[in-house]
């Protein structure tokens, strides 16, 4: 997961794109002080709270499997779900192209 996410963020750093995480690790200190460095997190994440996978954000979005992905266009509209790797790149690039066309 991490290498692909990192490379996507890097590739699109000058584009109107954001990778936003919702993290469900229970131990915030460990996440903030260790995981962030070890796994080189280069994107911002909401913290789902101390209840981990039962936390409020994942509950609200009915998330029952990790990872779960939603791809949202520049108008805030959901356009795809659970695309990984190359499939994710394709959708993101398509939506960026759409945005450029719409001007």
């Amino acid at each position: 997961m991490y290498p692909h996410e990192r490379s996507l963020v890097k590739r699109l750093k000058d584009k109107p794109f954001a990778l936003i995480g919702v993290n469900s690790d229970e131990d915030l200190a460990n996440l903030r002080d260790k995981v962030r460095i070890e796994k080189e997190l280069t994107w911002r994440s909401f913290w789902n709270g101390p209840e981990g996978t039962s936390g409020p954000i994942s509950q609200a979005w009915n998330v029952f499997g990790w990872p779960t992905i939603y791809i949202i266009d520049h108008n805030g509209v959901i356009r795809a779900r659970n695309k990984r790797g190359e499939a994710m790149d394709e959708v993101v690039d398509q939506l960026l192209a759409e945005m450029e066309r719409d001007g």
Partner: protein
Amino acid sequence: MHRIVLTAMLLAPTALLPAQVDAAGSKEKSAKAAYQLLTEEYSQAQTESRRLASIAREAGERVQLGQAAVAFVPRFQQAAKDYAGSENAVQFLTWITLNAGSDSDATNAALNTLVADHIASEAWTALAPRLAGLSRTLGDERVAETMASVLAGNPHDAVKAEIFWARGNKVIRDAYGEPAPADKRLEAIADLRKVRELIPNGDRAEAAKRGLFELENLQNGMPAPEIVGPDIDGVEFKLSDYRGKVVVLDFWGDW
């Protein structure tokens, strides 16, 4: 005199005589005892099989799991036959349905008997949540048929609620990469609403509510709901802060 008495006895009402109540009660006890013995033996066989599997794995050998059930299926089938026609058979038939694994003949046969002879049993409450999982061995159509039969033939609200939940939730689970087609989505919405009608409170109701939210708000083409919360440094921010950008929203964890 004797003849009249005999006739009177033959015409006696069908209420159970004390001896018959005892017989039914003791049959139930013996069925429960037999079920307990079999399931305990099975549990021990599973433990042994896992022990052997981990030894094999350490020796670098390939391991095939799920074999412990194979030897037990015929014994549960025999027990189901012994108690055929009575509620006592249901526990054995349920075990076969849930544990016969890739033996689809045994699974099908047990499920057929449950539908044919025990459609009104309350025991479907326990079986219903596991029906969607049987799609792999029995196929989607068979599972859908079974759910419809139970809804039509079972009088218990708790059973119906579990079937509506299983059916609606299956649509959500199946919609991993591609959202559910419109007709399935509408059926699932109707099913999950039924769950909430039948069980207004508790875990199942909450799960149905979440499922409904997904079906009604998280499909392609719908505006993403707002998220407000702290990042891992405790700084509060919003999903809508990123309007104007393409966003990948990634629910993740480091485990």
